[in-house]
């Protein structure tokens, strides 16, 4: 058993941390104020290799893998969880195209997604995200086109994506249950538009909005996978890419809280000495550190398993559940240590708290995760 992060990935961590400090930190205040996604960051993320982390080199990425992706998203999220979620959802468009796409689809979309185009993967509808079978968006074949009608909501990167992977109802099985298919959408397809842009309490600066399909004409060659494969594609993408991405954001927020809380405790002087000398503050820092390490190593294990080709859906769910809940607790403790300063917008711990709250339902609520984990526990213990 080897718990040492490879030297190559520590170098990646250092590079991405440097990139985040240089290119993302200057954007954060404006993102917080306006909620606007800074589009200029897309090509810069492409240049440093963030967009193509899990895309094979033959399609313009590096294929460095999921553990590398976890570390990279963690470092990005330390300075901006909003950019972290934009990046992680981008990967949720790359992975299904490479895993289920035709050679033509891979050659057409993956190189641009690795370079300067942001991707999105949208499943959730107003009826809910986890109730996949209850979705209303449907597609029917007319000539050489699939005609899609419906509406997706809470779509990350909605207003900035150049490639969108989505699913729609396309038929029913022998038992009368709906069947779904996956599609690759380009924003300039006839009948496609973006709708409402949500004004969120956290992850401000990452677009979350509606995708509207109004007799949207999708060329038949843009069917992703086989007809009827939609649920398989959606669930595998959410389980393996989405949940590990959200877990990585959670880990980044845990460590951001730890660093800020520790720094503040050493600088803040009360009764003639830094508050870091107080045992009660040390206990809170110990809790943050414990939760951060717990989150990190559960996430690294799950992503390492993914890189090894091992089944890891349960481990990914576990990592996501723990890391996002822990991120909220770590941010809360960091705010406690800051006292009244945690209410001041200049201090980032309040942002970590708001961001962490938004990560919890993203990619499935903690309750949905617990349903998965509970079933696993009953089956195996």
């Amino acid at each position: 058993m080897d718990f040492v992060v490879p030297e190559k990935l520590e170098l990646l961590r250092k590079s991405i941390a440097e990139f985040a400090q240089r290119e993302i930190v200057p954007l954060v205040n404006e993102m917080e104020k306006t909620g606007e996604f800074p589009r200029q960051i897309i090509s810069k993320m492409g240049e440093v290799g963030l967009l193509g982390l899990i895309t094979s080199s033959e399609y313009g990425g590096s294929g460095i893998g999921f553990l590398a992706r976890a570390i990279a998203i963690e470092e990005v999220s330390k300075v901006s969880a909003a950019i972290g979620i934009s990046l992680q959802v981008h990967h949720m468009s790359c992975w299904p195209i490479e895993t289920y796409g035709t050679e033509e689809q891979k050659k057409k979309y993956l190189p641009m997604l690795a370079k300067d185009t942001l991707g999105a993967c949208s499943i959730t509808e107003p009826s809910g995200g986890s109730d996949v079978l209850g979705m209303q968006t449907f597609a029917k074949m007319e000539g050489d086109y699939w005609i899609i009608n419906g509406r997706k909501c809470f779509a990350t990167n909605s207003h900035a994506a150049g490639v969108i992977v989505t699913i729609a109802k396309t038929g029913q099985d022998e038992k009368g249950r709906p069947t779904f298919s996956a599609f690759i959408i380009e924003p300039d397809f006839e009948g496609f538009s973006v709708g409402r842009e949500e004004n969120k309490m956290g992850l401000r600066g990452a677009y979350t909005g509606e995708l509207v399909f109004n007799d949207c004409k999708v060329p038949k060659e843009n069917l992703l996978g086989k007809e009827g494969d939609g649920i398989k594609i959606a669930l595998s993408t959410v389980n393996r890419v989405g949940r590990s991405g959200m877990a990585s954001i959670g880990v980044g927020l845990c460590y951001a809280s730890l660093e800020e809380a520790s720094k503040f405790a050493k600088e803040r002087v009360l009764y003639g000495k830094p508050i870091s000398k107080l045992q009660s503050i040390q206990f809170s820092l110990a809790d943050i550190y414990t939760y951060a390490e717990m989150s990190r190593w559960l996430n690294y294990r799950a992503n390492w398993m993914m890189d090894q080709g091992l089944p890891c859906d349960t481990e990914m769910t576990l990592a996501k559940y723990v890391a996002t809940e822990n991120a909220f607790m770590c941010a809360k403790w960091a705010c406690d240590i800051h006292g009244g300063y945690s209410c001041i917008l200049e201090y980032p711990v309040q942002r970590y708290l708001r961001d962490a709250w938004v990560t919890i339902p993203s990619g499935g609520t903690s309750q949905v995760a617990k349903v998965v984990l509970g079933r696993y526990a009953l089956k195996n213990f």
Partner: protein
Amino acid sequence: MPQAVVCVKPIPDPKHWDKLYLDHKTGVLRREGVPHALNPPDKHALEVALQIKDEFSWDVAVVSMSPPDTVKILRETLAMGADRVYLASDKAFSGSDTLATAYALSELIKKKIGLFDLVVCGSMSLDGSTSQVPAQLAHYLGVPHVTHVTKVETDDAKSFKVVMDFKASEMIVECKTPLVLSVTKEVNLPRIANVMGIISSENKPLEVVSATDINADLYKVGLDNSPTKVKELFIPEIKRKKEILKGGDPEDIVDELLDKLHETGVL
């Protein structure tokens, strides 16, 4: 292929200097638990060479003299785009002053690289801050040296027009290869190693060599053979000074205040 050589030095990471402390009994700077990082000005030196490589297809070799555990720090130069690294690492080099270091680096360059067109150094290391090694290296290599370089221009990569910045004045120097340049942080913005660079760095050569490997004269390296010695290390004590100026005429008091501020160097 034209050859650039970049000298780099792993130093205690400036982000963790709060963990450094001075052992007053031994006079030694303790650095336990402080990770190493590339000396930041050296990244600017590497960027100068990499930009020449990008435009004129040069080969870029990195040289360093440091303990063997700094290999992983040097790999970052390969990830940024350097072609190979030579690290001189030997107990015989331990405690070398700037002249001994420059000698060892010159022997490393002569033995492992041979002919070169350009050597680029950072203008100083942030831990030692002497700025002496580049000039001493140029002496040992027998080539000209231009220091405090803030701008490098070339049309053919054979002759260079460089700007030397001395804060109060600038000097434009036209020079021909081979030469040594020492550059400041104003010269460029170093690139960040991208993911493909990090992956390819694993397959680039990184050779660790001993004093014997480069036939270094052991009487010219190490603490005992260094002409300069650190006599004492201390942390300057900085205290607030309070002095109340009293007198009759406010203008006289202001004049006195200005005189004192000039005397102390504040103005």
